């Protein structure tokens, strides 16, 4: 079993922050149009900080794991610091860069998270 698969499986089977977020200030949905992954990231902000982050996904294990890791990462983070969470961080957290055809599965939640944050704070994109 590869290192990527171990962390992916752990977060796929035990996703953190999965489910709808009541009272969300931002709710953004993203999709990979051909493979069909769908993810929604919801954020609640308090005084420029992400007080809560949750996600909903009908998506593959890699996408779910990515959303799980990302929502964990940005909880408590200032909105203007979200842009520092990038692919490099994500791939490191996944313990390896996914093969090229599967990069989009991992980056879909990142793109969706950034759009959600940017809807609350323009510099978050």
């Amino acid at each position: 079993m590869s290192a990527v698969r171990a962390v992916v499986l752990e977060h796929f089977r035990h996703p953190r922050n999965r489910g709808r977020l009541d009272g969300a200030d931002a709710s953004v949905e993203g999709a990979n149009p051909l493979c069909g992954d769908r993810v929604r990231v919801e954020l609640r902000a308090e005084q420029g900080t992400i007080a809560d982050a949750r996600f909903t996904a009908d998506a593959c294990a890699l996408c779910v794991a990515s959303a799980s890791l990302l929502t964990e990462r940005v909880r408590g983070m200032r909105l203007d610091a979200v842009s520092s969470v990038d692919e490099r961080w994500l791939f490191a957290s996944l313990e390896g860069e996914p093969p090229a055809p599967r990069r989009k599965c991992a980056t879909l939640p990142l793109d969706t998270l950034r759009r959600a944050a940017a809807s609350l704070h323009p510099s978050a994109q």
Partner: protein
Amino acid sequence: MPNAFGLIDPNDPELRDEQAVALATLIGGSGGGSGKKIGAKMIVGRSGRIIGGVTIGGCVDAQVVEAADALMTDGGAGQRLLSISLDDDEAFEIGLTCGGTLDVLLTRVIPSSESDPTVAAHRRALELLEAGEAAVIVTPLDAPAETQTLPASEIPDAGTDSRVFLDRVAPPLTLVIVGAGQIAMTLTRLARELDMRTVVVDGRDRYATAARFPDAGEIRVGMPSEIVAELAPGKNAAVVLVAHDYKYELPVLRQVLRSPVGYIGLLGSRKRGAAVRDLLAAEGFTANELARVHTPIGLDLGGKRPEEVALSILAEVVAVRNGKRP
């Protein structure tokens, strides 16, 4: 038939031009001769048009058509109860293998008349069905003018002194198809022939299109599990998972395993089905809940082409609905 229920819809082009029709309804019977369910209907038009049927055909059907023709031309009472009784020898003479009895209620109807009690009752039934509600057409056998339709939920339990025929008509089965691939395309085509209402669900708007699914009743694009939750499929619905992708299967199954949906089917091999069940079992779903999933989906017809797989799926849905499969 003018519609899936055999009801008289005055807006139907097939009936619009008929001055009068006779509605034949099978209200009782035993043995051979019919082969149809109680409530089966045939509409015989004054023009000679015949729609539907109350028997399997042949000479018995001919007797019903003759009686219907007579009802329309004779004048007199607008309703007649036709009872046909055949012993085994008589049945054999007219091409049947065994005898039986048949009770057919014949009612003269003016499709263009809004005040015709049958037209009014059928119109009300169609309205209820359109709203997704089962309806009961109540026909007093001694007072046809008092025919009316009630929502099935409003039929009183108490008996009545008069003889009435209660004709329950239920909305068509809703087939929720998750995954907009080739099998799904064929499913919508075949399901239409079976008078099922289809909803195609997918997360990909390039797949779930009207061009690919001209026969679908509805096409929904979005988060499949949320769409299915919103549809809230009940006993009169079947959910078939044909995406062959756990990304939709797992979230949708989480929604429906504890719902009253009448049928759940999952496309895939036994091994694949077991893997999906194992993942859900680890989340706390019970063996009984997981046993509701028919996988491999469909009756084993031995076919591999999308059309053959779709046929096997619908065969199983029908078998389960009719109580022939668990």
